[in-house]
């Protein structure tokens, strides 16, 4: 009824534009025979969903409905012109994962591989590694991507999992909003407002790989308009296995604690302040080169990491059609290990303003400033010069979201301009469009340019990776030869031009499908380019250096397709399949000169299938099957993993769960190949029992 009236009104208003849209739609229907029937199903479905269903929800449920999503600007998922995926709190709970890194295995388009018990390689759309540098990660708006070596240390990205509201993953460039390094994706980990975590929570558990863990949280009101919570958690984790079946030395433990307060001094203002602290001891076995026999030394150590951060955010509604937010944070991270120690302090300031300057134009703009300084302690294996550095980042962005035909067609134009100390100004534009022929179908396309800016690792760091003793082929000289990755002051930004297209369909109330495809063209990717050897005597004994200079000699492209669906065949049964295909082709610009990069080593196919069943008497049964294809360059075989969880809620306040992980094999490797040689270990099968009590 409503739709019909609306369409007629539209036709009168802008019949020409509508005809064009309709023409495109008809063409689409011809090309895809499935579309016409889904349109029919869709329209009757739209009638039945409407608000009738919402009134059946309780107020508590209504309060949980996400009106919008995304942190810079909020939007409903089905209304986002990007390959977006959201992991909900319920997904985390039902999956049985015990870390944020493991939760990301649900997301199509991401590759999550465990290097050892405490190290992960996680990337979006290829280019994986421990220092995967094309994926930006933020926790409540705080960047956790390190400018030391461009990447994310996943072991220390932790908070109480029960307090995570959702994890939003956007594959593809997000640089026009989030800035440099959001080349192939952005992950936003968003914690709950403390208003939603009143009361206490205690959980504890133990098992095979999870030797023991405990969590607590308590939240309450603080006067009439404010709430707070504080939490603490501790995890003690077992070591993984070496390929030989022997125990590795990578057991680790981490404790994290923090607080969050939310205050609404007036109806127009909301203020949030949070702080976190963590400390971890990560076991690892390192192999570093040395210039005297036996030319390598292997040792096990506990790498220590700790950090503290505080974040303040103030949102103010200026008028019905305008709001602003101001965010300031301080973040200190510290890592201590034999090859390299680093202490980093970051101050960040971010201001955003959203308003409607004209009818149908929603403008979001903002400015930002980041000041980051570090202090490193080098070793023979990894040396950073200068040892300390202070870098500043200025940024400004603007985005205009234009409604071309209300409820049908939207166009978003945006760009971010940044100035960093390495490459100066960077321009990162994005144009995207969203076409929603009806409530159940949406089609989007996007074009963007993004850059990955140089880090200290490429500009200031020399890594000595191996020594070839004298008179040992291929070293025929009388001096030992040292293979080094050498810094390059001219190393510049890597760039991507990304073309994306996607389609979402809510075929039935119980079935929705999301498809995204992309083609990315990369320029000036990092390479390690061979240069003429030379004799060095600054470090004794004198030796030959075989330098591989960090440079921008690789170009290439990749493309892929990502599928995910959610199907509720029955009221109590939910199934989530996801499939990822990725192809990658990188070429070196310098023919005949070796330039190393393991970036082409990708799993071509990945598959995940999750099933969640709500059984009678408070029981829940969850099964999760995943398959990851071979990494052929580094000889890592494809693997299949099965996780299972049996949960039981005997009362409203108590939950007991038994989780089995990687049940399908005894142990398997997931990743190999990296710059610094830490021992790779294999993921074992595991189980744990956990009890959670709410009070």
């Amino acid at each position: 009824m409503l739709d019909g009236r609306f369409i007629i009104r539209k036709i009168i208003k802008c019949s020409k534009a509508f005809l064009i849209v309709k023409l495109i739609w008809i063409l689409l229907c011809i090309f895809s025979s499935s579309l016409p029937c889904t349109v029919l199903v869709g329209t009757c479905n739209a009638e039945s969903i409407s608000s009738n269903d919402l009134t059946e929800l309780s107020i508590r449920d209504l309060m949980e409905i996400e009106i919008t999503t995304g942190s810079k600007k909020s939007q409903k998922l089905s209304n986002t012109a990007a390959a977006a995926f959201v992991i909900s709190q319920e997904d985390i709970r039902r999956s049985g994962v015990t870390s944020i890194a493991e939760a990301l295995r649900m997301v199509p388009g991401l590759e999550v591989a465990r290097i050892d018990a405490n190290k992960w390689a996680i990337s979006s759309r290829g280019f994986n590694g421990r220092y995967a540098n094309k994926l930006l990660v933020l926790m409540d708006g705080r960047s956790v991507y390190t400018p030391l070596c461009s990447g994310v240390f996943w072991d220390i990205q932790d908070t109480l999992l029960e307090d995570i509201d959702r994890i939003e993953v956007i594959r593809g460039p997000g640089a026009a909003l989030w800035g440099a390094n959001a080349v192939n994706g952005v992950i936003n980990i968003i914690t709950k407002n403390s208003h939603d975590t009143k009361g206490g929570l205690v959980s504890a558990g133990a098992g095979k790989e999870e030797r023991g863990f405990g969590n607590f949280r308590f939240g309450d009101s603080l006067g009439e308009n404010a709430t707070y919570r504080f939490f603490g958690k501790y995890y003690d984790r077992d070591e993984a296995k070496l390929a030989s079946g022997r125990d590795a030395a990578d057991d680790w433990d981490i404790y994290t604690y923090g607080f969050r307060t939310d205050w609404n001094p007036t109806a127009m203002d909301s203020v949030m302040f949070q702080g976190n602290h963590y400390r971890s001891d990560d076991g690892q076995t390192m192999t570093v080169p040395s210039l005297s026999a036996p030319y390598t030394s292997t040792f096990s150590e506990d790498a220590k990491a700790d950090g503290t951060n505080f974040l303040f955010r103030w949102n103010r509604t200026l008028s019905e059609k305008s709001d602003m937010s101001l965010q300031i944070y301080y973040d200190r991270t510290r890592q201590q290990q034999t090859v390299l120690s680093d202490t980093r302090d970051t101050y960040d300031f971010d201001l955003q303003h959203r308003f409607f300057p004209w009818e149908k134009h929603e403008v979001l703009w903002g400015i930002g400033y980041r000041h980051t300084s570090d202090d490193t302690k080098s070793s023979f294996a990894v040396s950073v010069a200068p040892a300390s550095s202070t870098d500043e980042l200025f940024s400004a962005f603007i985005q205009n979201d234009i409604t071309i035909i209300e409820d049908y067609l939207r166009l978003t134009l945006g760009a971010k301009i940044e100035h960093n100390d390495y490459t100066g100004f960077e321009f990162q534009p994005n144009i995207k469009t969203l076409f929603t022929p009806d409530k159940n179908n949406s089609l989007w396309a996007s074009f963007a340019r993004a850059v990955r800016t140089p880090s200290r690792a490429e500009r200031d760091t020399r890594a000595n990776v191996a020594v070839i003793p004298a008179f040992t082929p291929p070293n025929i000289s009388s001096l030992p030869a040292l293979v080094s990755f050498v810094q390059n002051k001219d190393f510049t930004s890597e760039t991507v031009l990304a073309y994306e297209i996607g389609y979402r369909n809510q075929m039935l109330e119980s079935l929705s499908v999301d498809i995204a495809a992309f083609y990315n063209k990369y320029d000036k990717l990092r390479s390690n380019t061979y240069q003429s050897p030379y004799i060095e005597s600054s470090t004794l004994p004198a030796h030959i250096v075989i330098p591989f200079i960090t440079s921008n000699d690789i170009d290439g492209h990749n493309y892929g397709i990502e599928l995910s669906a959610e199907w509720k065949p029955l009221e109590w049964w939910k199934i989530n399949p996801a499939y990822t295909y990725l192809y990658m082709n990188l070429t070196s610009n310098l023919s005949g000169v070796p330039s190393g990069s393991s970036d082409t080593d990708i799993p071509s196919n990945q598959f995940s299938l999750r099933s969640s069943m709500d059984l009678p008497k408070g029981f829940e049964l969850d099964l999760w099957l995943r398959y990851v294809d071979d990494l052929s360059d580094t000889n890592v075989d494809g693997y299949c993993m099965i996780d299972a969880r049996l949960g039981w809620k005997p009362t409203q306040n108590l939950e007991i769960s038994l989780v089995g992980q990687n049940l399908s094999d005894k142990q398997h490797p997931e990743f190999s190949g990296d710059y610094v040689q830490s021992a790779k270990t294999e993921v074992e099968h595991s189980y744990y029992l956990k009890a959670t009590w709410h009070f």
Partner: protein
Amino acid sequence: MAHHIIKYILRIILLAIVFLSIPISYIYASESLTMESKVKAAFIYNFAKFVDWPLAVSNDTQSQPFIIGVIGYNPLIEDLMSIEGKTIKGRKLIVRQLSNIREMNNCQVVYISASEKDNLTGILNAAKSNNILTVSDMGNFVENGGIIGFVKVENKIRFDINLKTAGESHLKIRSDLLALARRIIN
């Protein structure tokens, strides 16, 4: 050297923007916030279940319809209209677009559009004497004497309650609802 000059200039620009920003006028309204108004409509329907109205003089209120009125234009009305016919406290729900204050008399709930901000005092006074539950999403609604005000907090809808006005309007708000409110003004 040039690098330092650029950075110096950028710092000045940054400071200038911070201190000069935001006095921009936003006249035009647009954007159909479909989902948002649907959810708000469902909230209003639910609120009614947790509020007790004073017993009417006549005993046959049960046979009377339960009327939700909307003052000022708001897309929400279409979502409210779509749930017309449902029952609230055993009474049939009717939704009405109100064009003046006098039409409020028979309503149990009145939703006040933000466009009516200038007439708020008059509307609220009339509402108080007619035991009407007032709801709105305009800024500072509960501070200005409205009973339930919607606020958006991190993409979710929350609400504030003015218990003082509710008391003066002889409306009893049940503790289940109060427990979920973001702020309560006494």
